[in-house]
């Protein structure tokens, strides 16, 4: 039986139209040259492809092309945003506000900055996964320089009100960084309207290639950042290194496709996700993790009582799903995101993240729901009852 892929929050397959665009930058007869070598035709053609992609990425984010700084992905973009802003703006203060449910590429830099003398406030979301803008506002201090909040949580799919948080931050003169890795191409983004100073993006979550991302950096007024990499001075000195033309062209194509198809695709995937939840929700002991209504189109996260997470994942080895985030799964620990939402260790451990994407079909959703129900019932049938007592 073919594996049903329901792990699109971890990564997505590259759209064949994107592959085509990338191949046009790779062969000897293609636009493979170094985009910095503008003294010759091949270099100028590569540069033109980079700039076309920059415009496409900027358009998806509601930004101007000159705001886009290429990176290797969202992890680097988040690191550049947090380290870059914190170190540049340190003379103004050394306090950062974020949430406990951020991606490790935000939390780990914050912990590193604490060792450099910064103070970080880690806000706890409500049981629905939402960090209220009022919580952010209450956490701001005179020495707060940066707020970092993800748009869509990578485990639960819960959507944060970054527009309102942007208004709060701008009114207080505090920078706002938003990790939009999970929302780009699925939800509308507008860094100018939402007053987002730094926006992290990645290509591989929207059917683009792995290994490329971007940080949209506010230009008016210009926002200072300390770079992470030094070398050739590319990207206005913010990110040195030869630009990977094929990756960037692929990212641009992925953004163009996502922008053109977003409305229709979001409706289709939301419909499928609702069917999946509807088929699973009658299973006794199943709980939806995170807000039911404020969640990204293709994302569903459930905890199932009475089944152990690792056993359920192995039993469902014909489904490509994850328990918690892929990053957390590597550590073999219960999801810290679900624990922050108040789930018990066992419910966090017995969670399934089911994320649908561009190539998910209705038939796959039906089959996946049947398989999950069957394996949960099989594992529950052999489990002793919870209460410890003599047999």
């Amino acid at each position: 039986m073919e594996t049903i892929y329901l792990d699109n929050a971890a990564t997505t397959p590259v759209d064949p139209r994107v592959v085509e665009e990338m191949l046009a930058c790779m062969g000897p007869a293609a636009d493979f040259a170094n985009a910095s070598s503008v003294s010759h035709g091949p270099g100028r053609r590569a540069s033109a492809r980079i700039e076309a992609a920059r415009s496409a990425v900027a358009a998806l984010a509601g930004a101007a092309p000159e705001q886009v700084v290429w990176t290797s992905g969202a992890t680097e973009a988040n690191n550049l945003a947090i380290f870059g802003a914190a170190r540049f703006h340190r003379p103004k203060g050394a306090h950062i506000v974020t949430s406990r449910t951020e991606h490790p590429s935000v939390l780990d830099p914050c912990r590193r900055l604490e060792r450099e003398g910064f103070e970080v406030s880690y806000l706890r979301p409500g049981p629905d996964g939402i960090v209220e803008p009022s919580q952010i506002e209450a956490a701001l201090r005179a020495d707060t320089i940066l707020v970092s909040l993800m748009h869509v949580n990578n485990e639960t799919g819960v959507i944060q009100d970054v527009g309102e948080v942007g208004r709060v931050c701008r009114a207080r003169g505090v920078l706002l960084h938003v990790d939009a890795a999970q929302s780009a191409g699925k939800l509308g983004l507008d860094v100018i309207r939402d007053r987002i100073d730094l926006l992290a993006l990645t290509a591989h979550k929207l059917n683009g290639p792995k290994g490329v991302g971007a940080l949209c950096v506010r230009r008016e007024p210009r926002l200072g950042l300390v770079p992470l990499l030094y070398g050739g001075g590319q990207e206005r000195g913010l990110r040195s290194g030869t630009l990977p033309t094929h990756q960037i062209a692929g990212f641009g194509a992925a953004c163009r496709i996502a922008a053109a198809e977003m409305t229709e695709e979001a409706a289709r995937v939301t419909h499928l996700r609702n069917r999946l939840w509807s088929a699973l929700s009658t299973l006794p002991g199943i709980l939806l993790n995170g807000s039911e209504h404020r969640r990204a189109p293709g994302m569903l996260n459930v905890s199932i009582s009475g089944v152990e997470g690792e056993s359920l994942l192995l039993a469902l080895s014909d489904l490509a799903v994850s328990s918690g985030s892929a990053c957390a799964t590597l550590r073999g620990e219960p999801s810290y995101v679900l624990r922050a939402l108040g789930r018990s260790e066992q419910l966090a451990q017995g969670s399934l993240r089911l994320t649908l994407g561009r190539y998910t079909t209705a038939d796959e959703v039906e089959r996946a729901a049947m398989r999950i129900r069957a394996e949960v019932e099989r594992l529950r049938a052999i489990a002793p009852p919870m209460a410890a007592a003599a047999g």
Partner: protein
Amino acid sequence: MHADPRYGAEVLRRFRQLPGAGDVTGDEAVIRARADAADDGARVVLSLRTEHGVVVEARFRAYGCPYFIAAASWLTERLRGASRHEVAEWDWREVAEALEIPPSRFGRLITLQDAARAAAAAWPGATATAV
């Protein structure tokens, strides 16, 4: 179920087919013994039927990781023909070796050993009772 290189073939077979899962039915000469892990929620119930001083049938119920479930299944076969003394003396290292269970999961196997000892304690005529 697809192959998974993280688990050995025998662990996968037992996890998939669950040989020995369930309860020994009947009331006469059936021992039921339970053990719970202190930390991760893993738990097992063994039910054993004895005749003439040895185990003639053994079944299990288990909640835990695939290694734990496979090990419980393996133990039901291992205990057939065992005397009370042999059940009491059974050592978790035996199943760790037989199923090539990684050291990170050894802690859960001790829960199986606890269940075996509880079964020996509940043996007909034994002075102690099951946990």
